[in-house]
């Protein structure tokens, strides 16, 4: 039997690591409630804030869309960035390291596997949110919308891989850093309001987080009239920036994973548990 090629190992690893995520969710379905009904209630809170201050109806749409995208941000933080910490604690990380595969493949598998539940959550929030609150959307350009969404995810998961390389070195800091990144990113990326409200410079800085540009672009494509006064930059510029971020983060993630693995090996941190 011939030895498997590097690509064969890569793709088999992706499928192998995605499997526990997909199967795990089916075997214990309580997440269906926690990840759909409860986030929808949370989004509704922000909708009612805007209603209390008599915001235009399009702002409801902004919030629903932002709420849906939180699913992906939380998935990146909790199921990717700090995942290696959990794997280290259970002893799986060392088994991944000694296998002739790459950590990028492991992470990609986690991302794909986790995306099933994440997408269910996002779709539930969007669909129910738009229906319940009767939000009207006018889609300007479907291919652009799809392109923005897919590139946002690609860049976002690239960022998640980069984070996971940093967290490889850390113990419980990893979990707390993920926690720390939750609300501040909700703020600066404009999950619940147009990011332009932060000012151009702040919004530009926040654009390093792919969801900032992705949300702004998607809002422009779904609510063109209202976003005319609140948009950050043109959709085409945002598309281009997202493409650059995707490539950049994936490349950085690969370098960082390799560097962090070497550093962890030198400092003897790859197998430390209970930090």
């Amino acid at each position, binding site marked *: 039997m011939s030895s498997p090629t590097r690509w064969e190992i890569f793709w088999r690893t992706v499928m*192998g690591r995605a499997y*526990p995520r997909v*199967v795990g969710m089916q075997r214990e379905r309580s997440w269906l409630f926690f990840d759909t009904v409860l986030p929808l209630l949370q989004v509704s809170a922000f909708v009612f804030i805007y209603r209390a201050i008599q915001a235009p109806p399009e702002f409801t749409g902004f919030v629903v869309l932002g709420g849906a995208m939180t699913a992906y941000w939380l998935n990146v933080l909790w199921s990717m960035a700090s995942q290696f910490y959990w794997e280290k604690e259970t*002893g799986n990380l*060392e088994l991944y390291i000694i296998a002739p595969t790459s950590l990028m493949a492991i992470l990609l598998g986690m991302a794909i596997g986790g995306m099933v539940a994440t997408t269910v959550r996002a779709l539930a929030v969007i669909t129910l949110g738009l229906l319940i609150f009767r939000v009207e959307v006018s889609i300007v350009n479907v291919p652009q919308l799809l392109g923005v969404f897919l590139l946002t995810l690609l860049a976002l998961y690239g960022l998640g891989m980069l984070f996971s390389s940093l967290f490889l070195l850390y113990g419980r800091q990893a979990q707390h850093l993920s926690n720390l990144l939750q609300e501040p990113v909700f703020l600066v990326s404009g999950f619940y309001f147009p990011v332009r409200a932060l000012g151009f410079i702040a919004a530009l800085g926040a654009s390093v987080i792919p969801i900032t540009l992705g949300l702004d672009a998607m809002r422009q494509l779904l609510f063109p009239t209202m976003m005319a006064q609140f948009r950050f930059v043109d959709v085409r510029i945002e598309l281009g920036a997202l493409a650059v971020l995707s490539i950049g983060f994936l490349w950085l993630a690969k370098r960082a994973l390799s560097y962090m693995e*070497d550093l962890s*090996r030198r400092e003897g941190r790859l197998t430390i548990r209970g930090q």
Partner: protein
Amino acid sequence: MSTELAMKTEQLSRVYKAKKRKARGGEREIIALDRVDLEIPTGELFGLLGPNGAGKTTLIKILTTLLAPTGGRAWVAGVDVAQNPREVRRHINMVSGGESSGYGLLTVEENLWMFTQFYGIDGETARRRIRELLEIVGLADRAKTKIFHLSTGMRQKMNFVRGFLTNPEILFLDEPTLGLDVQTSHTLRGFIKDWVGKRADKTVLLTTHYMYEAEELCDRVAIIHDGHILACDTPGNLKKHLQRGVVFRLRVTAIANPERLFQHLRGVQRFSHVEVNGYTELDFILEDENALPPILTAIQDSHGELISLEKRDPTLEDVFISMVGRGLGEGGGSAGTTEGAPR
């Protein structure tokens, strides 16, 4: 490095720097491995025997690319572990004792299949190997059981299978029978011996602090203590070194301060003691049998009572005692030694 060698280390060292408590400030060094030289040819079942904290796991971690050495070099399958860890991983696998790895919600079969995918093994081959190996270790009827329902022994059997599934050239077994019952340990040891015995191109590095395990399985054994290799030879040759002496095991009622009692007696090369269920067990390596009566007199004089006396063939533990001055299972216990070198 010759490719007939599965593993080689040259002056391999690993030093940890640990921070001292705040009041004392600074750092202290912990030398886990100290200039270790080893050569393990292909096809050998090599044992690394030593007490807890000797450096066995540190050595395995370096050879399996989980830890970088701070000095010296190491090669596995002809590849430098520090320079090219990714290439090393194509040739190895590892099983550790007391593992809790795997995903609780997946079945035994699913967990094992997942790990084969990290090695690029095609589905059909993976499933066939899983079936065969589960059958051999007696887990076939648990293939569809979720692993969080498994007992510790069953989980270790599953981890065992995981190590062999990928058919590695070099397999690292780090205290693989730790915490397992007698029957399970026996089954797994039989499996290891069989696997290596039938495959001339396979090499196993086994670490253990059970000397009978090393004696039963290993072609050669290295005795490691405090990061140093004290001796490396076949179990038989190692024990032959002791045949210049006579080994006695005495069980006596608890006696205070055995070191003071026996350390000045003529003919006592080495001894160790351990408290067991209210008794004191004394292991002596004597020049000859004439050294025994003064020992018995000393016990009587200290109001101790002799429960049993046994003359036995030297074991690897005796070899260890003769080199280190205490038993494999003893923690910080002191050992008696004669003044100066063994007489």
